[in-house]
């Protein structure tokens, strides 16, 4: 997804995101998922496959996932048109394999849909949970914590399942030099899109209105600030 500091603009009559000059990165929530799964592998063994549905400019994200600790990477070569499409591509890949765990970010930072994990779970007929803030695995059963409004719930879930990850499940990992060098020469498996399962069509993108200019208040005039909040903003 686009780096957080990207310039946001739209083309094609404001129906498409303008990718020109935009740097694509692993989303911060997906970074949590990747870091946690690398830790689980360090503790218990197993193998990690990184998968991304995106166009050519997203390939560096798969290289980075390999550098951080994924064993192999799959590039779902398609325009990620909407969440349902992305989920269907992920499910198609997963159907052919026997993944114990499918981890991803709880949401992306471009569309913030938070839907892909749920859809993948449904398409595969397995449970999905989000946002997962703690994840341990013992004997084929996962103990996890899910954040709820104002608190947490602790759950036990049998494998396999899908989890949308969120902080503080772990800390982000930075790839080391060796990881980066090996990742450069590892082959990426490319998978072409199957089907055209798209559920939505974006008809328009609209930028928010510009904020007016700021009103500065002197640090010794808190009475004045309260007055402004009461009378002008009418929020007190």
């Amino acid at each position, binding site marked *: 997804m686009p780096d957080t500091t990207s310039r946001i603009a739209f083309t094609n009559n404001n129906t498409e995101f303008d990718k020109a000059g935009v740097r694509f990165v692993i989303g*911060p929530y997906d970074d*949590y998922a990747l870091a946690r799964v690398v830790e689980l592998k360090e503790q218990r063994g197993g193998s990690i496959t990184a998968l991304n549905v995106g166009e050519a400019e997203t390939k560096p994200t798969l290289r980075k996932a390999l550098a951080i600790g994924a064993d192999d990477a799959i590039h779902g070569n398609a325009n990620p048109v909407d969440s349902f499409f992305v989920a269907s591509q992920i499910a198609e890949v997963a159907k052919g394999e026997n993944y114990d765990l499918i981890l991803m970010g709880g949401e992306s930072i471009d569309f913030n849909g938070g839907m892909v994990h749920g859809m993948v779970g449904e398409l595969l007929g*397995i449970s999905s949970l989000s946002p997962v803030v703690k994840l341990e695995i013992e004997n084929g059963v996962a103990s996890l914590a899910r954040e709820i409004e104002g608190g947490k719930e*602790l*759950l036990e879930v049998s494998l396999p399942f899908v989890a949308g990850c969120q902080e503080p499940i772990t800390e982000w990992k930075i790839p080391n030099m060796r990881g980066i060098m090996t990742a450069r020469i590892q082959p990426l498996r490319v998978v072409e899109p199957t089907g055209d399962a798209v559920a*939505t069509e974006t008809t328009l993108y*609209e930028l928010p209105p510009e*904020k007016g200019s700021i009103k500065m208040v002197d640090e010794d005039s808190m009475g004045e600030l*309260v007055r*402004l909040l009461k009378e002008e903003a009418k929020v007190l």
Partner: protein
Amino acid sequence: MAVLVFVELSQREVKMSSRAALSYASALKDGEEASIEAFNPLIDDSYFSVKQVSREKATGKVLLPEADIVVSGGRGLKGPENWGMIEELAEALGAATGYSKPVSDIDWRPHHEHVGQTGLKVAPTLYITIGISGAIQHLAGVNQSKYIVVINKDTDAPFFKAADFGVVGDAFEVVPKLTEAIKASK
């Protein structure tokens, strides 16, 4: 920033959508009524691969996701021992409290109060920040707020560009004065 995306749902049998609380008001057209059907599934334990072990929730205080007014603190507060003045201000306002990611990373406060891109997104009527510089990752979680007040001792803090009202000053001096002024105005 928050971009509005207008979407059409294609011709599928089942359409489902959800919205964030407080994002916009519901409206039923005049004379319209939604039909409600009772649904009584017969499911036994074998259906469930997820078992709830326990649940804990903060009680009593104003909850962050629903709060109309939020007071947020950042690294400018220098340490968890200084949080008292934030709580006093919040209490005077009937507000919930939150904080920025650097504070979350060093564990000064419980994680469910982290506000920002990878934390909670809030959209209160009034968002007051103290000692937060306003990096874009924090803005991503709060820029839907109706009014933003920024208190920071650095005139160059980027947050001032996204604020409606700003105060340049030492938080340890300004916040208690603001709390006093609010109490005095009641």
